């Protein structure tokens, strides 16, 4: 296998080098995974459930740390990152969860404003940004509703609004179309594409064949915690070119 030199070029926003992750119960979720993602790429991460997709996303967001190898996100090495620096790394990331992780004790609006409160935004600016994010996902009219009254697709879009309100450079989505029918799934996919067009880097984990058929860019396929040979070949060589191609199409 070929490995990238440990020098990180500025355009590489995510860089995995020989990363392994073993959980305390002995389960080996990732084995020797290496790849790079350049700024502005939109990449799908595929594989069956249990293949290690979620673990890979968790490593990027520093929710888990690798046992060996290095994960570098925006120039910061996750393996050696101090606990106090983790919040500031996460502020560069928009996280979209399969289970949405919404708060049902507050309105749609208050769910979306949370990341801005965390970052200490001024209230008037926050309000403006929250409305813009809700507008983008088509939930502006529901801002006063409780998220529990929203449909599955609407909850997923709410989760997306919360992830983008902070205008992060990188969006990580874990099964964003997981339980949705294909109409909703396409809607969400087109939202993602529009973000990518304005320069956001996206990494989307999915096992949804419909979604993958519509997408022609670079994919990373995981099987039992390792990248497939085809993915591994794509992972390093000319990765950013392929990403650009994906964007052009």
């Amino acid at each position, binding site marked *: 296998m070929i490995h990238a030199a440990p020098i990180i070029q500025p355009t590489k926003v995510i860089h995995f080098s020989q990363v392994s992750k073993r959980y305390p119960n002995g389960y080996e979720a990732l084995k020797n995974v290496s790849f790079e993602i350049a700024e502005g790429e939109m990449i799908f991460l595929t594989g069956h459930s249990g293949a290690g997709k979620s673990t890979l996303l968790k490593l990027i967001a520093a929710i888990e740390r690798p046992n060996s190898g290095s994960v570098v996100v925006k120039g910061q090495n996750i393996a050696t990152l101090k606990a*106090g620096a983790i*919040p500031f790394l996460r502020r560069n*990331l928009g*996280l979209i969860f399969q289970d949405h*992780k919404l708060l049902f004790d507050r309105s749609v609006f208050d769910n979306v404003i*949370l*990341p801005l409160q*965390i970052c*200490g*935004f001024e209230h008037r600016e926050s309000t403006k940004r929250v409305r813009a994010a809700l507008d983008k996902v088509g939930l502006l009219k529901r801002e006063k509703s409780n998220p529990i009254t929203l449909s599955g697709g609407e909850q997923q879009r709410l989760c997306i609004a919360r992830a983008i309100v902070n205008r992060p450079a990188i969006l990580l989505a874990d099964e964003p179309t997981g339980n949705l029918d294909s109409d909703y799934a396409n809607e969400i996919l087109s939202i993602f594409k529009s973000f990518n067009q304005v320069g956001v880097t996206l990494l989307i984990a999915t096992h949804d064949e419909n979604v993958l058929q519509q997408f022609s860019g670079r994919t990373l396929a995981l099987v039992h915690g390792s990248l497939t040979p085809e993915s591994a070949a794509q992972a390093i060589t000319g990765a950013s070119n392929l990403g650009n191609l994906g964007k052009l199409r």
Partner: protein
Amino acid sequence: MITGIMDHARVLARTIRHVFHMPVSNALNVLVIGIALSLPTGIYVILKNLERVAGQASSAPQLSLFMSMSASKEAIARIEKQLKQHTAIEMVEFVPRHEAFAQLKLTSGLADVMGSLKENPLPDAFIIHPKLTHSERLEALRDELRTLPHVDHVQLDSAWAHKLGALIKFANLVIWLVSVLLSLALVAITFNTIRLQVLTQRDEIEISKLLGATRAFIQRPFLYFGLLQGLLGGITAWLIITVSMALLNSYLANLTHLFASNFTLQALSANDIMTLLLFSAYLGWLGAWLSVTLHVWRAEIK
């Protein structure tokens, strides 16, 4: 900077709303803290008043010098001259035996008994106001005066105040013990309240962490809550003490009227109140901090 202050103000406002969101359970917590704090504070107030009484008595120590019955007038005059020249003595009062006898007859209500006495049993005496107040030096002075000729007995009158002082010192130690124990109780109450809050807000904490919240951001509302609960508990203790003192004073007014004195309990000073409120607020904060540290951050290390 201004947004930072606004953040704090917003969190504080939310904390206050939170307190009023569950008025009964929070009010009960505050009451428990208030009662716990009012115990040592109450003992402190009583001791402070006792100290004041003891202080008034012992601030002017006296020595009583009794001459022997056989002492001649010349001997007494000599002693008086000697006492007046003594450097450690401020003032000397001579109490002739017949005067003392007459006074005793008047004040003790034992006129009949006294009248039946064939002769005056009281000796001539001096009341001595020394310059010094230190108890060891006073004792030395007493011992020195005892050796003078025709002196039968010398008594240090502040001895009882001295004993009371020792008793107050002991009671102060009791206050400390009670305060430490009840402070621990206060910390424990806040600790537990915050633990329950952390449990009910587990989702919010978890999600906030994922969205990039710092440790300070997450623990701030809990610390404010602990601080506020402690402060309200301190205010409750202050109210309890003030009301109790008012009740006691109205009763004392009747009581002291009978004894023709106007003794009233002295209330907490502004300094005492500040100390009480700061201390209770700090303890509330401490309990919250311990709880958050244990339940939010320790829980993180798997």
